[in-house]
C-alpha cells in the first residue's frame, strides 16, 4: 500500500514567499504614487521598463542555469528589485540607465551569486551604486518637482526625454531650476550650499525647501512611511531594522544639529528627505541580505543609520543609503555570527 508519507509538521501557514513579495510591492504603491505626483509620470515609465528587463533577465539566466523558470519568476522578487531600483533613478534619466542597472542587479548581483536567498548584496542598491559611480551626471539630474515647474512635462515629453529623442537644450529646460542651475535633490542642494559657505538657514530658504523640507520629498517619504507601517501591521516585515535605522539616524542628526545648527541638517529633514523612508522600510529590510536575529537586526539597522548620517554629513555624496546598505550587507554575516540569541536552557554569562 502506498501511503502518503510526510514529515511533521503537517500543518503549514499559508504565507508564501511570493505573497510576502507581493505585499511588499503593494505597500510601496503609496510612495510610488506620491513620487509620480511630484516628479512626473517618468517614475512609472522607469518602473515599467525596469520590471520588464528584470523578468527577461531573470528568465534568461535561469534558462542558462537550467533551472525551472516559472516558479522563480513568479516569486515576485525580481519585480520588487526592479521597482526599488527604478524609483531610485531620476525619472527622466535615459532609458539605458535603468536597463543597465536592472541587468546588473538581476544577473550579476542576484543570479550569479545563486539566485534568491544567496546574494550577499542588496541587488537594487548594488546596481544603484554602480550607476552612480559610472554615470554620475545622469544619476543626479532630477527633474524639477512638478508643483514648482514652470512648464511641467506631460507623458509624451517624458517619453521623449527617456528614450532620447529630445535635444539636450530642451532637456535642460526641464532640469534647470529658477537660478539656472541643474536641479538636484534637496540634500544635494544643502551640501552644495554648505560648501559655498551659505548657512543652513540660507539654504533652506531656497524655493526647493518651500515647506521646510524638500518640495515633494517630505510627502514621498510620508507615503513610504505609511506603506512601511502597513507592512509592519501585516507582519510582512519586522520592526527591528527600520527602527534601528530611523532611531540611529535621528539620534546622530539631533546630536549634530544641537552642536552646530548652522552646518547640520535637522533630524526631521534627515528623516524625511531623500531615500530615508523607502530605504528604512523597503530596501534595508530585504531579509536575504540583512542580519537574521532580532538583536542582530537592530544592530544592522543602527549601523545603516549611522553610516547614512556620516556619509550625508561628511561624505562626498548627497545621499548615502545605497552605500550604507551595502556596507551593512557586508557586516551582516559578521553580526549574525556574534549576535546569536541565547538558546533555551543555556545560561548567560558563562
Amino acid at each position, binding site marked *: 500500500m502506498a*501511503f502518503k508519507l510526510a514529515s511533521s509538521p503537517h*500543518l503549514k501557514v499559508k504565507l508564501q514567499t511570493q505573497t510576502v513579495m507581493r505585499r511588499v510591492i503593494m505597500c510601496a504603491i503609496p510612495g510610488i504614487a506620491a513620487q509620480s505626483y511630484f516628479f512626473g509620470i517618468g517614475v512609472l515609465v522607469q518602473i515599467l521598463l525596469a520590471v520588464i528587463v528584470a523578468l527577461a533577465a531573470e528568465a534568461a539566466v535561469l534558462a542558462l542555469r537550467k533551472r525551472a523558470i516559472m516558479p522563480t519568476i513568479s516569486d515576485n522578487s525580481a519585480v520588487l528589485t526592479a521597482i526599488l531600483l527604478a524609483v531610485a533613478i531620476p525619472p527622466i534619466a535615459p532609458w539605458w540607465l535603468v536597463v543597465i542597472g536592472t541587468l546588473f542587479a538581476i544577473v550579476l548581483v542576484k543570479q550569479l551569486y545563486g539566485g534568491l*536567498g544567496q546574494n550577499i548584496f542588496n541587488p537594487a542598491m548594488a546596481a544603484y551604486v554602480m550607476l552612480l559611480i559610472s554615470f554620475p551626471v545622469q544619476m543626479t539630474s532630477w527633474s524639477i518637482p512638478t508643483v514648482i515647474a514652470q512648464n511641467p512635462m506631460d507623458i509624451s515629453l517624458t517619453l521623449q526625454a527617456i528614450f532620447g529623442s529630445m535635444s539636450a537644450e530642451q532637456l535642460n529646460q526641464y532640469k534647470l531650476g529658477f537660478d539656472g542651475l541643474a536641479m538636484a535633490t534637496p540634500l544635494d542642494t544643502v551640501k552644495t550650499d554648505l560648501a559655498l559657505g551659505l548657512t543652513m538657514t540660507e539654504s533652506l530658504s531656497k524655493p526647493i525647501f518651500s515647506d521646510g523640507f524638500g518640495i515633494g520629498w517630505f510627502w514621498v517619504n510620508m507615503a513610504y512611511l505609511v506603506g512601511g507601517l502597513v507592512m509592519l501591521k501585516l507582519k510582512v516585515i519586522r520592526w527591528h531594522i527600520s527602527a534601528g535605522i530611523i532611531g540611529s539616524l535621528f539620534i546622530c542628526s539631533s546630536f549634530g544639529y544641537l552642536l552646530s545648527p548652522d552646518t547640520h541638517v535637522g533630524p526631521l529633514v534627515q528623516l524625511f528627505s531623500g531615500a530615508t523612508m523607502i530605504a528604512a522600510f523597503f530596501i534595508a529590510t530585504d531579509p536575504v541580505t540583512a542580519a*537574521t536575529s532580532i538583536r542582530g537586526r537592530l544592530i544592522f539597522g543602527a549601523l545603516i543609520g549611522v553610516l547614512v548620517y556620516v556619509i550625508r554629513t561628511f561624505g562626498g555624496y548627497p545621499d548615502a543609503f545605497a552605500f550604507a546598505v551595502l556596507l551593512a550587507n557586508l557586516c551582516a554575516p559578521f553580526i549574525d555570527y556574534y549576535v546569536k540569541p541565547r538558546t533555551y536552557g543555556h545560561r548567560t554569562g558563562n
Partner: protein
Amino acid sequence: MLTLLEQIDKGTLWRAHGGVHPPELKSLSNQTTIGQLPLAKHFVLPLTQVGDSALLAVEVNQRVLKGQSLTSGTSFAYCPVHAPTSGTITAIKPMPSNHASGIEVLSCIIEADGLDEAIKTDAHHAELSNQEILKIIQQAGIAGLGGAAFPTHIKLSPASEIELVIINGIECEPYITSDDRLMREHSDEILAGVAIIQRLISPKRIIIAIEDNKPEAIDAMQHALNSSTLANGTTRITAVPTKYPSGGEKQLIQILTGQEVPSGAIPAQLGMLVQNVATAYAINDAVANGQALTQRVVTVTGLNSQTPGNYWVQIGTPVKHILDTLGFNGNVANDKIIIGGPMMGHSLPDISAPVLKGTNCLLLPDSSEIADSVAEKPCIRCGECAVACPALLLPQQLFWHSKAEEYDKAASFNLHDCIECGCCSYVCPSDIPLVEYYRIAKSAIRTQNEEKKQADFAKLRFEARLKRLEDEKLAREAKAKEAAERRKGSMSSGDKNAVAEAMARIKAKKAAEAGTEPAPSNDIADKKAQIAAALARAKAKKAGAAAPTSEAAANKESAPADANDKKAQVAAAIARAKAKKDAAKAANTANTSGQSETDAVSANTAPAADDKKAKVAAAIARAKAKKDAAKAGNPATPDDAIAQSEADSATADKAQSADDKKAKVAAAVARAKAKKQAALTGNTAAPADVIAEADAVPAETVSAADDKKAKVAAAVARAKAKKLAEKAKQSIQDTDMAIEPETVSEPIETAISETRQETVSNIVNTKDSTDAENSADASVSLVEESASILTAEQQKKARIAATIAKAKAKKAQAKLQEKE
C-alpha cells in the same frame, strides 16, 4: 522579591519565547463523550517498551486473560505490557510498528476470544507503603500517556527532592482533545491520581496546567479540586494562554515558573516533575482498582473520519480496526493517516500497526485540511522561523548548515536543543521542511559522535601500545647492556686459535650455504654432520618445493604469494621442528643412557648422536638449511655482500681484545648473518653498503598485527625455556660426573633450540617479531642463567647456542619484514 512559590500561588505566568497559533480545530472531536471502541478481532502488542528489556512470559497458543502481563522483568526500568483482552496468542513475531518508518518490532499477536475475561485483581486498600504503590504502578505498566511513553514509576522515583509537580493538561496540539474530554468526564479520578503522586513525591506545590481554550475542562477540574482532599492550598489549577507548543515540558516549565530546564538536563534538576493528566488517571486506575494499563483515550478526528470523537481504545488495537469501525472517508493510498497531532505526529506507513500507550490521536485529514507538501523554495532568511522557535534557536542557520552537511557547525548552533516542535516549518514562507533537515542532521551527528568515540578509544590504545613497546625496548637494551658487561667481566683469557676456528666455521657455513661443495676439512666437520646437514637441507628443499618460494619472491606484494611464502615458512618450521625433536631425543638418550645408539623412532633421524660435535654441526647445518630456505625466497641475494659483511664483522671482532674470542666471534658471526639476512630480505635490490646499514632496522617499523597473541606465545616460550633449563640443571645433577662437560651442555642446547624453535614458530604465527624477539632474548637469558652454574667451557657452548637462537629469532623477524 517574591519567592517562586509565592509567585506560583499568585498565579504569575511567564512568557515563553516563540510559538505559533495554528488553527485549533478541536471542536471537531470534543463535542461528544468518550465512546468505547468495540474489541478488535486480534491485537498486536509490541514487546519492546521504553525502558529496560524484558523477558517473554508467554508462549504461542497460550491463552491469556485481560490484564495478564506478557513479559516479566526484575530490573528497575522494566515496564510490562499486558494483554488487553482475553484470547490466544497466535504468534510472536516482528510486526510493523507504530512508527514513522514502520520498522518491524517483535510483537505478540493475540486472537481475541470475545469473552474479555480479566485476570483476577486484588483490590488495593489504602494502607500501602510508597514502595508498594510504586511497585503497583510499575506492574500496571503505566507509561507517560502524553506521547513519550516513558515509564512512570521511574519518574516517580526521583533521585532529588521535587518541590513542584506540574500536571500537564495543556494539550496544545491542534485537533487533539483526548485529555480535554478526560478532564471533563473523569476529573475526580484524575485528582485521585494526583493525590497518589502527591503522596509519593510530597511536593510543595502541584499545578494542574490547562490551556485557556478548554474552559469546560478547567471548570470540571476546579470543581473536582474543590471537593477533593487536595484542596488545601498546595494544589491549584492554572489556565495558560493558548499557544503551541506550551504543552512541551520545557515550555510549560518556563511559562509556569520562568525557569529554563538546563540544556541536556531533566526537570528534576530544577526540582520539578511533569506528568500528563491521563497518566494521573491511569495511576489512580492501577492503585485504586488494580487495573493494568490496557486501554487509553484516543482522539479520532479529521475530515476523513466519519465519526470523529474520543474513544477508549485497547492498547494493541490495529489502526485498521479503528478505521473500519469508525468509518474512514479517504482512501488509504492517497490520504495521510497521522498518529499524533498535525504538528508533531508522524504519518503511518502501515495501518496494521497498533495503538500504543503514547498514541493520543489518530488524525485522518482530507486534502483540504492538510495540503500536499509543496516543493521547497530558496530560504530568503526572513527570520520568521527564529521568531517562532520556542527554543530560541536560529533555524535558518541550522538549516543552512544541515543542508550543507556541515554538522559540526549545525551543532555549534545548538541543534541538539531543537525539540522538533515544527514551529519553524509551520511559518516558513519557502515551504522548507526544516524539522526534517534537523532530524537528518541530528542522526548524522549521533553517528559521527559514535564513530569518533571509537576512533578516540583506538587511538588511546594505540598510543598506550607504542609507549609500552618503547618501554620494553629500553628495558631490553638496558638488560642487554648489563648482560654484556657481565659477560665481559666473566670472560677468561683469549685464544687466537678460537678465532681461526671460528673463521673456518664461517667458511664452512658459507660453503654449506652455497650448497656446491662439502664442508672443508675441519676438525668439527665429520661425515655425520654432513649427513645431518644434507637431511636438513633436503627437508628445507622439500618445504621449498611444497610452496614455490621463488614465485613468492617475485610477487612479494601480492596476497597469494604472501600466503605461499607463509606456507613455506610454516612448512620449513615444521621440518625444523621435527629435526630438532629428533636431535633432542637423541641427545636425551645420550644423556640418560650414556650410550651412543641410533634412535629409530623417526625416519628423519640422523645416525646416532654419539658425537656431541656432530650435533653441534647438525644444529649449524639446520641453521644453514633455514637460511637456504630464506635464500630461496631471495635468489637475488649477492653472495659477495654476505662475505663482505661477514668479513667485516669478523675483523671487527678480531680487533677487539676480548677474552673469550671464540664465543664472541661465533656470536658476532651469528649476529652478522642474522642482520645481513634481515637486511637482504628487507631490501633485496639494495646495494651491499645499504644492506650493511640496514641491520639497524628499528623494531618500530615492524607493524604488529596481534601483539596479544604474540605475548601469549612469548610467555609460553619463556615458560618452556624455564622448564627446559630446569631440566637441564636436573640432568646435570643426575648425570655422572664422569660424563664429559660437552655432554652436560647437551640438554641446554636442546632447550635453547626448542625454545628458539617455539619462539620462531610463534613469530611466524603472530607476526609480532618485536615481542617474539624479546621472548627469545628472555629465554636465552634464562638459559644463560642456568648455564652459569656450569663450567666456563659449558658456558661458552651455551652462549654459542644462545647466540644462534638469537640470530634465528632475528632472521625470523627479517622474514616477517619481508612479508610485510
